[in-house]
């Protein structure tokens, strides 16, 4: 029997889809290309937004771009997502979001009626999140040079506290609280894009989270870190925090809330729900002695009423998951996009 050895694929020389996945390739692109170009102390916090002093205020500032396909999905659309996503990045700084900008990049041929639906939805989302869209820009690209509509939003908010909410504030012994069940957004979008039908409609969890985060901060909980679960899901968020804090996270699989519908869809598609995107869930890392108080506050907010403790911070670096059988395994970033298995 003759053996053969497959060839290695070297570091790609051009951008591939995996560079936008939030996983290992995104991480390498940021560390290798983007951060070195802009290196400064604010960027070095590796958080969802930057918090800086402007006059007498601590201002949080963030930006995000939205390229979701399909543009309309159960539970939201690219417009509501673009508002809530940026509001949530500000919320993860512990800030009260106040003003947003909107950049629209439309492809020649996009129906005005569709754009109208999207911007109306943005305004509704902004009202729901109590933010004002105060400036913006519109560009049109040739047909074939865009995918219908891309949206960029930037936002500012005020931090009305003196907490330093960032991975570097995480301490060994802290607990990890998760605001609710995971994976709804990723599965809702995938199901719509691929025309998959599952028992029971799965809606995106897309919503604004700042009321929940602010109620934690305002009640005096010593919040060490907040992180919303977007692309890359819970696993990637935990890994980012482990790396950013130089500590480790131990999570217990059966404590992670997962709806029957999302769980079933993930089983059918061979996806790991730990890596499936959310747009309305976050983790809060707080001192163990304040866990009960924090959970009580979270559960009083509609967007985090399903909050539970899912893990603890420890000295040993990396993320470890205890399975339903009591065995442990390591959780890492995925290389690129999570790909459905063949069989």
């Amino acid at each position: 029997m003759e053996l053969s050895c497959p060839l290695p694929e070297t570091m790609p020389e051009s951008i591939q889809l995996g560079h936008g996945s939030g996983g290992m390739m995104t991480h390498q692109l940021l560390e290798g290309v983007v951060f070195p170009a802009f290196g400064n102390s604010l960027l070095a916090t590796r958080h969802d937004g930057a918090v800086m002093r402007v006059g007498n205020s601590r201002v949080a500032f963030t930006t995000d771009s939205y390229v979701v396909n399909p543009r309309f999905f159960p539970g939201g659309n690219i417009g509501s997502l673009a508002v809530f996503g940026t509001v949530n990045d500000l919320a993860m700084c512990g800030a009260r979001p106040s003003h947003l900008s909107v950049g629209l990049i439309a492809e020649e041929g996009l129906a005005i009626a569709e754009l109208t639906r999207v911007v109306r939805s943005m305004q509704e989302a902004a009202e729901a999140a109590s933010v004002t869209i105060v400036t913006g820009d519109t560009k049109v690209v040739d047909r074939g040079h865009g995918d219908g509509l891309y949206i960029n939003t930037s936002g500012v908010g005020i931090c009305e506290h003196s907490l330093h909410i960032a991975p570097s504030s995480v301490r060994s012994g802290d607990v990890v609280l998760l605001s609710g069940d995971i994976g709804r957004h990723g599965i809702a979008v995938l199901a719509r894009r691929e025309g998959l039908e599952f028992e029971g409609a799965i809606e995106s969890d897309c919503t604004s989270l700042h009321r929940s985060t602010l109620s934690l901060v305002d009640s005096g909980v010593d919040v060490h870190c907040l992180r919303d679960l977007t692309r890359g899901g819970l696993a990637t968020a935990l890994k980012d925090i482990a790396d950013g804090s130089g500590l480790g996270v131990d999570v217990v699989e059966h404590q992670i809330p997962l709806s029957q519908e999302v769980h079933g869809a993930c089983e059918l598609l061979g996806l790991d729900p730990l890596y499936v995107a959310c747009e309305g869930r976050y983790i809060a890392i707080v001192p163990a002695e304040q866990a009960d108080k924090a959970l009580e506050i979270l559960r009083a907010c509609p967007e985090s009423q399903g909050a539970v403790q899912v893990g603890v911070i420890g000295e040993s670096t990396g993320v470890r998951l205890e399975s339903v059988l009591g065995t442990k395994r390591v959780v890492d970033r995925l290389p690129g996009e999570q790909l459905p298995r063949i069989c």
Partner: protein
Amino acid sequence: MMEFLDSYRDREASLRFAEEIKRVVTRPWTLMEVCGGQTHSIVRYGLHALLPQEITLVHGPGCPVCVTPIEMIDKGIALARLPGVTLCTFGDMLRVPGSSGDLFRAKSEGADVRIVYSPLDSLKIARENPNRAVVFFAIGFETTAPANAMAVYQANQEKLRNYSVLCSQVLVPPAMNAVLSAQRNRIQGFLAAGHVCTVMGYEEYERIARDYRVPIVVTGFEPVDILQGILLCVQQLETGRAVVENPYSRSVKREGNRVAQDMVQRVFQICDRNWRGMGDIADSGLSLRETYREYDASSRYNVEVATHDSEDGCISGLVLQGLKKPKECCHFGKRCTPEHPLGATMVSSEGACAAYYRYDSSSPIGGR
């Protein structure tokens, strides 16, 4: 559905089987789980940590992505790069390294590569895009063969002239024969792939069990299934028996799924096939029958590929044959990682190396 599945992930039941395995085992045994989906489960649930040290599990060649030969990957990439061609494939295939680059790279350089969830999706793309030549990369074991056959059959019924398949279907029993016939074989029992048997039944395995005096247990994919499969296999070995047992009867019948088999028979014929990492195995593949030859992308498009394998110290061939474990490779987790795989077993989530890397690589607690 989930309550049903959860009962096969039950902690108590799993631990009971693990205890029973410990009770009956008296000496070392080496078992192979044939399918990559089982490998994935074993590593994901840390099942090896529950087993007594006498049991060694080695991971079989049942990962369709891993065993697709490099010349087929090269052909897929070359076809995707042809003007006017849309290549449809299962997601995992995009990251498998060919002689130079993978389908992800071809896609980033302008090739029209689409991920599909079913071969019938590729038919739909062909119907909706009559000006594109749609090629479906038909890979996999007996599990994907019926649906892939159905796609070709349906294309023919509809006279869909812009549709073809690049076929690299493989069959499990000839690979088991190859593993057992290898001079250095150390496999003493098999956990057969439950879903392959769902389609094909297990009559063919009875001959293998008899000829090689090797126990074969038709096994599912959940922790309880796998531990039960190991227990039955060990019980046979300890008592000197070598038969086929089917504890996965909730899915598998002895004769399999005749309707699916008929569709495979109608469209495909048995052929020799090269397996990546294992070499040529006689009668181990499926190719299109003469009647469906016009749907064969290999004969429709004359793409030249210059395939070359590098001598890079990758031991994926030995891993696929169960002769080595992923961590015995000096490149594992160092030069070879899922984002820069040296071999196909590091690519697919069903590949043994990728499963180890993802769930077990730096674990202080994980398995052996």
